[in-house]
């Protein structure tokens, strides 16, 4: 894989996507080294999408052991995986998705990794981190100019947030020329319209993720934000506080706790509490594979944009509406 140019066999394999994002993007992907932190339900979806697109290497970092429940949420595992390290257990099925990508499992804890570890990657994709971990890793990434995206699935809800630092990108825009033309004599003549593809370049700045996930010290009033942004913050706060995610087994207590956290957050951001439907807390338990499929698809696509520099990426938060399944960007600055 040292050669930068695609072989004929690769061109054939990746034909349908090259026709979408072009051969330059494919060559950038081919050179990309990706780190995936934690490979649970959502992680397995991200791994699938990112392996299929044809990157150079994927490092899978996860120190957890496979539990009985996990095999039902992660299609890269099998019943025999129970008790093994999860990064190693997914290797076989992950490799089968694309034999051309070099996959390295790493069973160490993410907390043991230092700045140099992260610096070698093109993009770091993470799931299941607490706020402290996010802020530390995103700082390492920022210093080394490594693109970073992190996300989670909570039941029917999902989100991602990214720090691509200063990101340069381009789009192919279709321009229609022609239509009506006014001649010197003032007469209007119809000109046959033609479509031309124009390369439009852009540059965007991402804010440091501390501005996105860290609660402000004093009350503030930002411009109106997507209400699910506050749900995201509440779930992250819960995770930080209890060192776990809400569980069905302790639903009553957990929801009570979440409501309290949410109330504090809404007060801090001076949001009218009526805007927040508390029924949403019924929907945030466990990993739901079809939701992982959606959020994983969005995150993998953002990672692809980060690597290829093609198309407008989400800056910086993506939120999935757990009631009606719409999904949109929230620009948090």
């Amino acid at each position, binding site marked *: 894989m040292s050669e930068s140019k695609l072989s004929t066999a690769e061109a054939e394999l990746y034909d349908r996507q090259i026709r979408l994002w072009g051969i330059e993007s494919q060559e950038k992907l081919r050179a990309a080294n990706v780190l995936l932190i934690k490979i649970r339900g959502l992680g397995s979806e991200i791994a699938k999408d990112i392996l299929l697109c044809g990157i150079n290497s994927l490092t899978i970092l996860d120190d957890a052991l496979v539990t009985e429940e996990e095999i*039902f949420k992660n299609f890269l595992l099998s019943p025999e995986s129970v008790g093994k390290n999860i990064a190693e257990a997914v290797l076989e099925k992950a490799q089968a998705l694309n034999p051309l990508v070099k996959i390295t499992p790493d069973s160490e804890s993410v907390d043991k990794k230092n700045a140099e570890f992260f610096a070698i990657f093109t993009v770091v994709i993470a799931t299941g981190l607490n706020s402290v971990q996010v802020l530390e890793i995103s700082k390492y990434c920022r210093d080394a100019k490594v693109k970073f995206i992190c996300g989670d699935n909570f039941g029917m809800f999902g989100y991602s947030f990214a720090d691509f630092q200063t990101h340069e990108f381009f789009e192919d825009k279709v321009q229609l020329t022609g239509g009506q033309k006014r001649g010197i004599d003032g007469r209007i003549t119809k000109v046959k319209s033609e479509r031309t593809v124009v390369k439009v370049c852009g540059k965007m700045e991402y804010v440091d993720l501390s501005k996105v996930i860290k609660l402000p010290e004093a009350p503030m009033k930002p411009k109106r934000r997507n209400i699910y942004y506050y749900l995201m913050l509440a779930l992250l706060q819960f995770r930080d506080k209890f060192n776990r995610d809400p569980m069905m087994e302790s639903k009553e207590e957990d929801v009570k706790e979440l409501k309290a956290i949410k109330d504090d957050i809404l007060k801090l951001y001076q949001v009218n509490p009526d805007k927040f439907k508390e029924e949403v807390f019924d929907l945030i338990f466990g990993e739901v594979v079809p939701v992982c499929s959606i959020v994983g698809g969005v995150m993998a696509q953002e990672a692809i944009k980060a690597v290829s520099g093609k198309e407008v990426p989400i800056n910086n938060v993506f939120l999935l509406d757990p009631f009606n399944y719409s999904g*949109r960007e929230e620009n948090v600055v």
Partner: protein
Amino acid sequence: MMAKASAVPIVLKAEIQKLIPTSKILVVGAGGIGCEILKNLAMSGFKDIEIIDLDTIDVSNLNRQFLFRKEHVGKSKAMVARETILNYNKDINIKAYHDSITTSEYGVNFFKRFAVVLNALDNRAARNHVNRMCLAADVPLIESGTSGYTGQVEFIKKGLTQCYECNPKAAQKTFPGCTIRNTPSEPVHCIVWAKHLFNQLFGEDDPDQDVSPDTADPEAAGDAGVEALAQVDESKKVERKSTKTWAQETSYNPEKLFNKFFEDDIKYLLSMENLWKNRKAPIPLSWSSAASDDGDQEKSKNDVHKEDMEVWSFKKCTEVFSSSISMLKEELANKNFLVWDKDFKPALDFVTACANVRSHIFSIARKSRFEVKSIAGNIIPAIATTNAMVSGLVVLLTFRVLAEEYEKCLTVYVRQKSSESNTVMMTEKFLGAANPKCYVCSKQPMVDVSINTKSMLVKDFESEILKKSLNMVAPDVVLDGKGVVVISSEEGETAANDNKTLTEMGIVDGAILKVDDFLQNYELTICIHHYVPKEKEDPLYKILADMDLQAKSEEGANGKENGASSASAADFAAVNVDDDEDPQEGSSKRRKMNPKEEDDDDMIMLD
């Protein structure tokens, strides 16, 4: 008191959790979306799944159809998908059919066995068919499609929502024959012409794909045209034999072929002076001058960039023209005719070379082989991420359908985030209401067909109108009031009518036909209008499902859906009507889906 671990999402209502393992689900199509749907179903606790697909696995599927691997290439998609899913979870009961869903084995009773049908198809004909089957069997259908970064998921239920055919889709783009033969102005015109040339030289004889100058072009009429007509009348007589016969007699001599199509025919076109009064005239190109023009290109050696991505020099075009012809000639030796296939290299090479030479002659931008393949093969780009998103939505809607929470099964569009829009997935606010005049799901389906009743043969009426345009599978047709059986689905029963014109059968202006497709359980009334096309852009026939709808869409600047499906006809060179190729996960191609075609102002913001 921890419950036994299971794949069923614990967050779902208890009643849905209970229904999941016992509900029988049909997935139609094991392509990009199909593979993802199967994985999502299996990982959500569904245990009774059937999958049908007639296709086999190709290398270009492997970048997204992740249940397949390289060693599976050539095998049945449905069968391999089943095996891989069983690898994930042995407890699933999954049945696979390597077959077409449109065959008579899969009748209404087959469909009635399912709680939900999930479409993951790549073509409109099969989508229309499954739509009708689900309406007939009264089974909920979830329809989905992707194209590049965009996609959509739509729930369809009889009597509750619109059906897949309530809003006629835009007809496939076609070009008038004389644009292809006389006055091309875009690369696609030359590519279509080159495919026709391929068929003329190596394919099955099709008079509608003539490549020679069209002297009947109304635009060429006028003195010059007539003159030109008179001048060459003699040579025409000599050349009455088919292009294929002539080519065979020259034993496919590339130089002779080249000079005929790119020099002599072009000179002839030039003699039709009227055509070039307001257009740049073409410049004939001879074999000898083309072969000596090497541009500044270097030799390319198995380099993807050069061979595929760069526009070939004329010299390269002549070389490829010559080498591809000799390979195709060899291929033809043991066959009656060849069928154009974008994945057969000599066929693609031939079309690329010819299209580019013709483009140059008409001062049209030339294209690389990679681009020619896209256009000629009608390839719809497809990626894993969009398929993952769409199939996730499909299964989330499936949960709601099982719980009969139909009002929550709203259409979702996957879009590409752009600098103008923050939307990645957009959900409709309401279920789409059925079109009361839909020619498929309304109480008394009716359609107006305008057609030349004096010239159209019964057999063409059956193949072009009933099967190709109206997507019937096995229609029976009775002339209303007279009880004459015009077409019978019993083989041979009405063979004697095949070559009669509609008029000869008593089908004239104002006639009413009662059409019944037994398989689709679909009865349609057709009102016949006698119609003769006037302008050369006019279609050969028109099928009008709903007058009101068409009027609306014509005035609406936004043109959300294309109103009537005024179909193209035989002598309209269709880019891909006959094209097998994979409109992969091909979407329903609604305008909404294509962000490049639309303004974002029809977006519904939800909060």
